[in-house]
Each structure stands twice: as structure tokens, then as C-alpha cells.
């Protein structure tokens, strides 16, 4: 198969894959009872009425982990081709990889020193 067909397979796969989880949910609609009432549709919170809105500001720590992750997410994409071509490159490739990883590990060390990784 050529490149176009390989990706056509993925394209069809993405379309078809939705059918399999959707089917049982749709079938269940016909078999299950449907008797909604106000109490049943209430948000579950250990039997008491929920107080205030759920979608509020939350702990900053979660954002920080997200941000630190972002550094590595970008880094990883660049390291994949480096790893693939590694066997054909000379010793310089190792130095380049080392430098690249070092520059980004800097960010991790910085976040660490600034206590961004402390859970408190």
C-alpha cells in the first residue's frame, strides 16, 4: 500500500471507531426505562443539595503541572526524529541531543527550584 492508502485506512478507522461505542448506548435507549424526575436528575452530592456553582476557580497547582508538561510535550516531538536518525549520525548527534535536552531540562530545574512542583 502506498502512503495515501495508509492514511486512508486511518481516516476510515477514525470514522468507524465511533460506531462501536455509540451502538450499545443507542441500543440501551430502547431497552432501558425512562422515568426522569427532579430529584433523580439532581447533581449527586452525598444526598444533600449542591451549594454554589461547580465551575469555579481552582487550585493553581494544577495549572503549573500543565505548564511544565507543555515544555516536555514540545521537546518530545523534536526528539522523535532525532531518535530515528540516531544510528546514521556521527558522534555530533549525541552532543546535539545532549544540548537540546539540557536546555529544556533547565526549565524543569527552574520550576523545581521555584517550588512549582511542591504540592501544598
Amino acid at each position, binding site marked *: *500500500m502506498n502512503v495515501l*492508502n495508509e*492514511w486512508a*485506512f*486511518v481516516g*476510515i*478507522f*477514525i470514522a*468507524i*471507531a*465511533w460506531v*462501536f*461505542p*455509540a451502538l*450499545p*448506548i443507542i*441500543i*440501551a*435507549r430502547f*431497552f*432501558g426505562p*425512562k422515568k426522569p424526575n*427532579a430529584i433523580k*436528575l*439532581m*447533581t*449527586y*452530592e452525598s444526598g444533600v443539595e*449542591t451549594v454554589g456553582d*461547580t*465551575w469555579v476557580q481552582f*487550585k493553581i497547582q*494544577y495549572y503549573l*503541572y*500543565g505548564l*511544565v*508538561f507543555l515544555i*516536555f*510535550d514540545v521537546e*518530545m516531538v523534536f*526528539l*522523535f526524529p532525532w*531518535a*530515528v*536518525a*540516531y*544510528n*546514521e549520525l556521527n*558522534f555530533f*548527534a*549525541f552532543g546535539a*541531543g*545532549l544540548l537540546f*535536552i539540557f536546555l529544556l*531540562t533547565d526549565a*524543569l530545574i527552574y520550576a*523545581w527550584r521555584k517550588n512549582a*512542583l511542591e*504540592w*501544598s
Partner: protein
Amino acid sequence: MDCSSVVVCDLLRSGGMDPGLAMFIALLLGVVLVTTIPLVTVIFLIWVERKVAARIQDRLGPNRVGPFGLLQTFADMIKLITKENITPANADRVVYNFAPLLSVVSVVLIWAVIPFTPYHIGTDLEIGALYIVAVASLGTLAIMTAGWASNNKYALLGAFRVVAQLVSYEVPLVFALLVPIMLAGSMGMQDIVYAQAGMWFFFMVPLSAVLLFIASHAETGRGPFDLIEAESEIIAGFNIEYSGMKFGMFFAAEFIHVFTNAVLMAVFFFGGWWGPGALDAPLLALLYLGLKSAVIYFIYLWVRNTFPRVRIDQLLDLNWKFFVPLSIVNVLVVAFVLKILQELQIAVPLNASTNFLATIPMTVVLLLVNVAMTYALIAWLRNRGAKARQVDLANQHEDIVVAGAAGD
């Protein structure tokens, strides 16, 4: 388009069909076949999981429906189908219904690039490994949307923890994945399997295999890392507001995910379908892959049922202050040793025709380096643990002295 390499396509075209349409139908059949495999396997896997968990906890597990309780899953399915589907009034309906679908799809999509035998693979993408990383991270999104759309405080807390946990553990996962790619010199899944013709990567770089195992275990959100649905803390986390078949889909997605991880471990580190006679008999190759995956799957279950749950701060510290630096060092050390071996002409190119004996020198060196790294690591951890215990002991002693002085 090239039609000749696909049997079904040839058959349809000889019946006078348009080649483009024939190719499309052939691809469609392939897709349906590949999608069905994980979804049928999961029915059996749920039974295996429950039986293994029961045996570890000294129970019998399901044994009433059918022989050895084999039909238990079908009974559960009928139960889930006849349950009422409750959508809470406050939920964001569109996203709420979308999340369970996405969680299954994200896992099933991985199977597009899994090599079953030398000749049977959904599609052998040149960037197979990168495709897996990209698609698998959709699962995180599914759980996040589920938690947010439920409009429930527990569910939202679960979703937060997902962001922290799943996203964090993706870093060591990908760094561990870089090592087999580097050894094979390719991201294509078949290439990675062929590169293990001489020697399984597990014997060259066991540390990476262990890292990938732990990180992928955290990615499924179970075992000691089941904080996203910790029953005793946030009840069920992201799926608290889901009922009936929608809950069933999250459940199924988790089970398929674990088995998919077992298959990926087998492909990346244990030679995939490779075994004696695999090239001549595709069925035998499939059996090898199945056996390897089953053993790894059992270890996943074993870990899940044996270890106690960690705290969220411990979980994140373990990742960011231990696994991430370790996985980076691991990649650099392996890269360095590999380059030296290549310069010294000890390393051999790894491909389908690599001899077992030819790989021994490079395997021994890489293995020794890995053992040395592991040894240093364990020594460091022991040292650190001993120091922490001493500090604890000193504090305790101080407390006793203070209590004594106060006359308590």
C-alpha cells in the same frame, strides 16, 4: 492507488468493480476487522480480570453464569443495557454524551498500527509510535471532558487529578519509548518488531521497559495510581454522574486500555509476534504475540491488586522528581553507550536478518550499563530512606523528651 497487495481488493476488481471503490471497500473491511478485535477481547478480559482479582484476594470470583462464570460479562451487558440512562439536569449535555464515546475511540484507534503477524497489520505507518502517543493522549481529554461536563464537584476534582496525573506520566512514558525507537532506527511498528529478530529489547534496555510499564500503568489510572476514581476520597471521580451503558463505555475503555498497553509492551520490548517459525505461520505469530501480551497483562493485574493507593502529592513527586529526571538520564546514557559501541564497531545494525549471536556483545554492554544504573539508583534510594528514618527517629525522641519535661 495500489490495489494488487490487498487480496479482497483484487477479488473485487476481477469482478469488474472500479479500482478506487474496490480499494475503499477493502480498507473498510480491514478497519471493521481490526476494530472488532479489541472490542471482542474486552468481553473476555473483564472475566479474566475479575477471576484474577478474586484469586489474589482469596475469593472464587464469578462462577455462577455459565462454565467457570465465563458468561458473567454477557449478563452484565444485559444489565447495563436495561438500565436507565440518567443525564443530570445541570450537565453540559453535548460534552457529557461525547465523553464516553471519545474514551473508547481513543483506545481503539491505537489498534490501527499494532502488528498482529508479519503480514497482518491495520496499517504500517512510518510514524507508528508517534501516532500511538498522539492518539492515546485523547483518552486524557475524554476523562477531562467527562469530569467537567458532569457539573459535579467530585467529578471535577477527579478531572483535575487527571490533568495532574495522566499528563505528568506521559513525559516518562514518551522518554522510555524513545529508547526502542533509537535502537530500531524507525518509528514503524513492523520495523521495531523486525529489529528484535536477534534479541528482545528487554534484554538490552530493561530500565526503559520498567519505566514504560510503570508510566503506562499510571496512564490507565488504576492500581496504586487510581487517584482519578479513588472511591474513598472522591467517590468515583469523573464517572460519578454516569449510569447505564455510558458508564459501561468508560469501564470498557479502561479494560481495553490495559490490554492495549500489554500488547504495546510486548511489541516494543518483547519482540512482538517474533518467535520460532513465526515468519512461515502467521497463526503461530499471532499466538506468540497473544502469549506475551497475556503474561504482561497478568503482571498489570497483579500490580493493581497488590499495591496500596498512593497520595496525590506522593504521586506527583514520584513523577516529576524521580521518573522524569530518571527517564531523561536513561535516554542520554543509552544514546551515549550506543554511539560508543557504534564507533568501536561492536554494535550491529538491528533488522530482520540480524543474527542472535551477533547481538550478544552489544546486549551485554547495554545490559551491564542498565544494571549499573539500577544499582546506583537503588543505593541512592536506600541511603535517602535511611536518612529520612533517622530524622523521624530523632524527632520522635525529641517529642518524648519534651513530653517528659512538661510532666505529661
